[in-house]
């Protein structure tokens, strides 16, 4: 379990390192996030239903979760490109982890890549609602 927990942190550290190239330049950071969002695999329209919609976001965000061999896999979409980019990072971190791992995790990468705004303006970005949804799904899939 400890080993897997480390994995989540390692992925976060990789992301932080990946973003270091932008030296906190917000414009470049956001442009890269948009690029990441564009590369996120498309969520089938059948999943874009109210049940999968994350409440409390000012933009539309849908998130689904599937469990395979004890590991959780997430897919998501958003009509804002920046949030979609942020979601792609969350998916990178959480997809393929166990429920327990996800529930034990501590997220710190967003602040470290200069996107503190996303966390402080919770209601506007909906970031914390997305994270809460992931945690709730992890809880519901817990054995």
């Amino acid at each position, binding site marked *: 379990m400890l080993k897997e927990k480390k994995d989540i942190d390692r992925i976060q550290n990789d992301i932080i390192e990946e973003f270091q190239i932008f030296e906190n330049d917000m414009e470049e950071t956001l442009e890269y996030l948009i690029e990441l969002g564009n590369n996120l695999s498309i969520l089938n329209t059948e999943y874009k239903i109210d049940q999968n919609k994350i409440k409390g976001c000012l933009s539309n965000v849908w998130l689904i979760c599937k469990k395979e061999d004890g590991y959780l896999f997430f897919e998501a979409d958003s009509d804002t490109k920046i949030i979609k980019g942020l979601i792609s990072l969350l998916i990178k971190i959480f997809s393929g982890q166990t429920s327990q791992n996800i529930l034990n995790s501590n997220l710190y990468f967003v602040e470290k890549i200069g996107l503190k705004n996303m966390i402080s303006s919770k209601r*506007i970005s909906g970031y914390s609602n997305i994270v809460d949804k992931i945690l709730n799904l992890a809880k519901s899939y817990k054995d």
Partner: protein
Amino acid sequence: MNIINMIENKQITEIRKQFPILQTNINKKPLVYLDNASTTQKPNSVINKISEYYKNYNSNIERGFHTLGSQSFEQVNKTRETVSKFINSQNSSQIIFTSGTTESINIVANGFANELNEEDIVILSELEHHSNIVPWINLCRNTNSKLEVIPILKSGELDFKFIHNIIKKRPKIIALTYASNVIGTINDIEQIIKIAHEYNIKVFIDAAQAVPHFAINVQKLDCDFLAFSSHKMYGPMGVGVLYCKEEILQNMKPLKFGGAMIEDVSFCDFKYREHPYKFEAGTMNISNIIAFNEAIEFINQIGFEVIEKYEKDLFEYLIQELQNISQIKIIGNPKNKVPLVSFIAKNMHPFDIGMMLNASGIAVRTGNHCAQPLMDKLNLSGTVRVSLSIYNTKEEIDFLVSTLKKILL
């Protein structure tokens, strides 16, 4: 450039110097603050006054007979006089200090709580901010009265045909915004009040978006109630105003009960003091009320003649430049507007535009602007809103427009 423009530009440079925040950087870029309809920035005179208060005469008012208390009391009264002159009310006792427009509206809505029944109608418009919707929904719920809503036309202006018809049903009150915080529409309030008064209907005006941009004369308007916030007119946060007609103040019940609002108290009964104190229970935001005086002085010193002309020219320039960006669609087209505009882009979500502009140091508002019913009517999930103020410049608009072009084209 003619001489008038040169004088104006020089004056705006001087005005900008009074706002320390305008000299700061955001994301390593000079701040371009275009979210003035949310709140305006504060000049040094306002900021210094708050600090002067705490350094020199911090005290509660009308509590103890000491020098500090009377100094504070005098200063609070000074603001009351200044506000009274600013909107030309008959007496300064008609000026009630509140925590903001929202509290002012709640006082008025609560004041109607005993007057309405299931036969009665309350009228709002589709242009209202949540703060001028929710207190009235709550009132209607509590009294079983009905809520009717004046629709807007495609232009973003109120449907006067509807107003003429609905008024015949003799609603108890019409609560309207003077200027829309989303589209910018300046409603023809004077005309509506005239029509309403023919039927003896009271009119409440939410002037939060109007006060920083043009002169308001409550006696000429003949409105029954008018509310606004200090923070949207260069003043401190947490201070609002409610103006009411004298005869209404005599009979209206307060919303809050507590200290400073009573003349006599026993455990069996109490007797109200006269207004405005009747409506000002508890310790008020004394420091900020005192500093609010400086905000009005700031406006008075420039004068609405200059403010209106400068903001109008700057706003026309903004609209003309935005219209040149093919991806942008401006929402609404009313004849008279305060200097704010909402738009959407064909190829980008408002949230993304707001984030990208912020990366360049430009502050705008994105989202539903606390006007969800209006957004639903316009079939929009959100917009980008640019709102101007006296300290904004043509150069800032040029930077906004070039950044938008970079993002969208």
